[in-house]
C-alpha cells in the first residue's frame, strides 16, 4: 500500500512539474511578445 502511495505521489509530482513548466512557458512567451510589440512599434 505504502509503495503504491509513494508511486502515486511521485507521478503527481512529475505531472505537476509539466504543468508548472507550461504555465511558465506561457508567461515567457507573453513577456517576449510585449517586448516584440514595443521594440518594433
Amino acid at each position, binding site marked *: 500500500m505504502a509503495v503504491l502511495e509513494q508511486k502515486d505521489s511521485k507521478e503527481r509530482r512529475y505531472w505537476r512539474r*509539466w*504543468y508548472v513548466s507550461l*504555465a511558465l512557458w506561457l508567461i515567457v*512567451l507573453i513577456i517576449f511578445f510585449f517586448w*516584440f510589440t514595443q521594440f518594433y512599434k
Partner: protein
Amino acid sequence: MSILDWVILTGTLVAMILYGLYQSKGQKSSESYIMAGRQMPWYTVLLGIMATQASAITFLSGPGQAYSDGMRFVQYYFGLPLAMIVIAAVFVPLFRKMNVYTAYEYLDQRFDKKTRLLTGILFLLSRGVSTGISVYAPAIILSSILDINIYLTNVLVGGLLIIYTYTGGAKAIAQTQKIQFTIILLSMAFAGYLVVNALPKGVNFQEALFLAGKSGKLNVITTNFDPNDKYNIWSGLIGGFFLALSYFGTDQSQVGRYISAKDTKESRLGLLLNGFVKIPMQFLILLLGALLFSFYSFQKAPITFNTKAETLAAQQAGMEYQNLKVEYNLLTERNKELATNVVALHGTPNPVSLQKNLDELKQTQQQIDANRADFKKIIKEHNIQAEANDTNYIFLHFVKNYMPMGMVGLLFAVVFLASWGSISAALNALASSSFLDFHKLVVRKRDFSPEQELKWVRWHTLGWGIFSILVAMLATKMSASLIEVVNALGSVFYGVILGVFLVAFFMKRIRGTAVFIGALIAQLIIVLIYIFDGVGFLWLNLIGAVLVLLFALIIEETLRKKSLQKV
C-alpha cells in the same frame, strides 16, 4: 501553374490517398476503427491534435490576417496552454478511467442518456455543418486561383479523403495526419525562407520587420479591454481559455485523437506538448504575413489579391473600376518610393527625415486601405460573383506569382493536405458519435456483432462525408454573411457543452435532470445573445459554461426541496 507544379500537386495527393489505404489494413472491429486500437504514441497524438485543429484556412488566413490587421490574432491562442493543463489533469484521467469511445458516453455514465443525447446532438449539429464549411472555405479560394469549377473543387477538397477515412478509420487518419502535418510544417518553413529571400536587394529580414512594425503589423499584444474586440490579451486569455477547453475537452474530433493513445501518459504528453508549440507556430505563420506586407510594399500590391474579382470588376464595373485603379496605381507607386526611403534612412543619423517619410508612408497606406475598401464596395454594389474579402488570398497570390517552379505545386498540395487532416478527423468523430451516441442508443438498441458495428460506422463515415460535401455545395449559393453565421455556429454550442462537462467533473451533487434543463435554458439564452450580437464570439464560450453551472445548481436545489416537501 507549370506542368511540374501540377505533377507535384497531383502526385502528393495520390501518394497520400495510397498511404491512407495502406494504413487501412487490418480493420476488424469498431474499436480499431474508432480508437485506432488505443495504440497511439504521444508524437502521433500531438501531430494528430495539431493537424485536426489546423485546417487549410489556418495557413491561408493566418498570413492574410497579419497582412491586413497585424499579428494580434496570436492572442486568440493565449488561453490554450492553460486549457491543456486542465484537460491533461482532469479530463484525460476520467475519460481513460471510464474507457469511453466518445466524450458524450462519459455523460451517460455520470448523468443519464438524455444528457448524453443532448450534448451529442449539439456536437453533431455544429460540427456537421462546420465541416461542410471547412470544405467550402479553401475550395472557393482554390477554385478562384486555379480556375477550376467550384463544384469539382468541393469534391477534391472534401471527397478524396473519404476514400481512406472510410476504409481505415482512426488509424489511417492518425498515420496520414502525421505525414501531412510534417509536410505542411516543412513547406511553410521553406516558404518563410523564400519570402525573406524574395525581398528586394538592400532589404534584409531586420529591415522588413522594421517596416512592418512601423506600419502597425507587429502589434502582437493589445491590452485594451473591449468585450466587442475579438483579439486582445484579455479575450485571448479568458475567452480563449474557455474556447480551447470546450474544443479540446468536449469536441469528439479532438477527444478522439487523445483517447486513442496507448495510455494516460501518452495522451497527456501529446496535449501538453501541443500547449508548448501551438503559440510559437501561430506566431511564425503570422510573421510570414507581416513579412509579406513588407514584400508587397516594394512590389506594388494589387488592389485585391483575388485576381478573379479584379478581372470581373474590370468587365462589369467599367469606368468606376478604371478611375479607382488609376488612383490606386499612383498611390502604390508613391508607397514603394516611401518604403524604399524608410529602409534607406533606417539606421542612418537622420531621424527627422526618417520620421517625415514614415508619416507620409502611413498616410499613403491609409489611402491605399481606403481604395481597397472602395473596391470591395464596387464588388458588392455591382453584385459581382467573387469574394470581396481577399484576406485568405494573400498568401496564395504570393505563392502563385513569386515562388519558384515546383514549390508552387507543393504549397497548393499543402492547402489540400491541411484540409484533409482536419476534415478526416471531423468525419471520424461525427461517425463515431452519430453511431454510438445516437444510432446504437436510440434507433437500434440491441447489440451488434463487431463486424456489424464496423460496417455501420463505415456507413456513418460515408454519410457524413457526403453531407459535408452537400453543405459545401449549398454554401456556393449562400451570401458571404450567411456563411459567416454558419461558421460561427461552433461558438454558439461549445460553451453549453463545456458547462455540462464542468458540472459532471466538479459538481458531484448535481444530477441528470437538473443539468439537462439547465443546458437547454442556457442554450436558448446563448442563441438570443448571438442573434442580438451582444458580445464578441469568444466570450460566448465563457457565458454559456457559466450559465449551465448556474442553472444546473438552481434547478437541482429546487428539485431537491420539492422532493423533500413531498416526503
